[in-house]
């Protein structure tokens, strides 16, 4: 328990895979920049999930690095392909969709998540600034907000904290945290451990979580 390095948990790809499992078939999903964009690769067409991009696409599928059309990108600037039945719209309509509660789930990256589900993911104090993009609107508007991130910073600090010290994206917005170590639900009474990564113990997760964590549920190992 006096470990100075967290246990070796899921790779970025496996975090994305586990996050993909959190999505309901037929749902409308927005993927944030970075790790979350990998989630698209772990969804089957038969799941009928429609991916929405802030820049005005509903119904894109894989990233298609080979064939770059500057007008056909996701919100991370990556070239994408369309599914049959896709649609385009402008930014006003895109954020009406996001803020209006029409997105079933968003998967975003995180810098910190607090015990009450506050999210900080846009402003990096060390860099004296940040990029807010659509993160604040997604945090407020998505019906379910899933944060996919490393559990611990490179400096060995937990990203899951009692109170965020980074500037907030939105208060009380996170529903589920998926990290390399665990799946944690944010409930009305605080953080509740649901699953641990293969080879990671409940105690290890608790150690590397800098917030009260309810481990009283029947915690299971992630199915990957």
């Amino acid at each position, binding site marked *: 328990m006096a470990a100075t390095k967290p246990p070796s948990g899921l790779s970025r790809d496996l975090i994305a895979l586990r996050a993909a499992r959190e999505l309901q078939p037929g749902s409308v999903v927005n993927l944030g*920049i970075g790790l979350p964009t990998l989630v698209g690769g772990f969804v089957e067409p038969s799941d009928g999930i429609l991916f929405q*991009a*802030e*820049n*005005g*696409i509903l119904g894109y599928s894989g990233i298609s690095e080979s064939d*770059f*059309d*500057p*007008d*056909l*990108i996701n*919100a*991370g*600037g*990556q070239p994408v392909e369309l599914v049959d039945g896709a649609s*385009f*719209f*402008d*930014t*006003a309509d*895109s*954020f009406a969709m*996001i*803020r209006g509660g029409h997105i079933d789930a968003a998967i975003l990256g995180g810098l910190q998540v607090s015990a009450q589900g506050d999210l900080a993911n846009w*402003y*990096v104090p060390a*860099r*004296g*600034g*940040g*990029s*807010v*993009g*659509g*993160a*604040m*609107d997604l945090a*407020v*508007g998505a019906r379910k907000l899933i944060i996919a991130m490393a559990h611990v910073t490179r400096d060995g600090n937990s990203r899951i904290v009692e109170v965020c010290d980074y*500037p*907030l*994206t*939105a*208060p009380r917005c996170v529903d589920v945290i998926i990290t390399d170590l665990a799946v944690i639900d944010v409930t009305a009474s605080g953080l509740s451990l649901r699953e641990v990564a293969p080879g990671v113990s409940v105690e290890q997760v608790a150690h590397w979580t800098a917030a009260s964590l309810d481990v009283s549920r029947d915690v299971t190992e992630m199915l990957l």
Partner: protein
Amino acid sequence: MLAEIYDTADAAVADIPDHATILVGGFVSAGTPSNLLLALKRSGQTGLTAVANNIGLGDLLDELCEDRQLAQVIATFAIRASGARSSRFEALYRNGEVELELVPQGTLIERLRAAGAGLGGVLTKTGLGTMIAEGKQTIELDGEQWLLERPLRGDIALLKAWRADRYGNLQYRLAGRNFNPVMATAADLVIAEVEEIVEPGDIAPEQVGTPAIYVDRVVQCEPMPVRWEG
């Protein structure tokens, strides 16, 4: 009034005054008026305020930082999370040579839309309880808090569309719409770069993305693709 067709991007931006507020359409590579931005660089206006989704992500808006043409930037993406790459804008910003207002994307488009649509503001939850709310009015309605966001208007809008007809109707392609149609409504002088100019009637009325009355100048340019540099 119908749009005027310009022969070159340089001619289309030549009379933009110093200290103008310029709305720049596009989202990284999509629907971005790169030719107009380079023309603005060559034209050399200074003290400009740029309102755009992004600066310094591989876009050519960043080029306006080379000769310090920008006094202020209002954007949603401006500072990278990692220091692995940097932009001209970031360097100036850290030096205190340009101001930055970061605005959530959904709020930025609503502020522009309010300006274009004659609204005095909109109430949103986006930004409540964050730095974005600092100095802004909140309004309580039925026990719920809302943030009042005010209109944001430009003197000039620089847009990119796929095609224009000679009247100035614009048609967008794929995800090239993004900020362009709303920005077209929110500036006094609207300049659009397009890939092709066609006759009135060649764009089906249902496929007009920006009606001609919003567009003052059109210039045909070879599209100049840029790419996101994370």
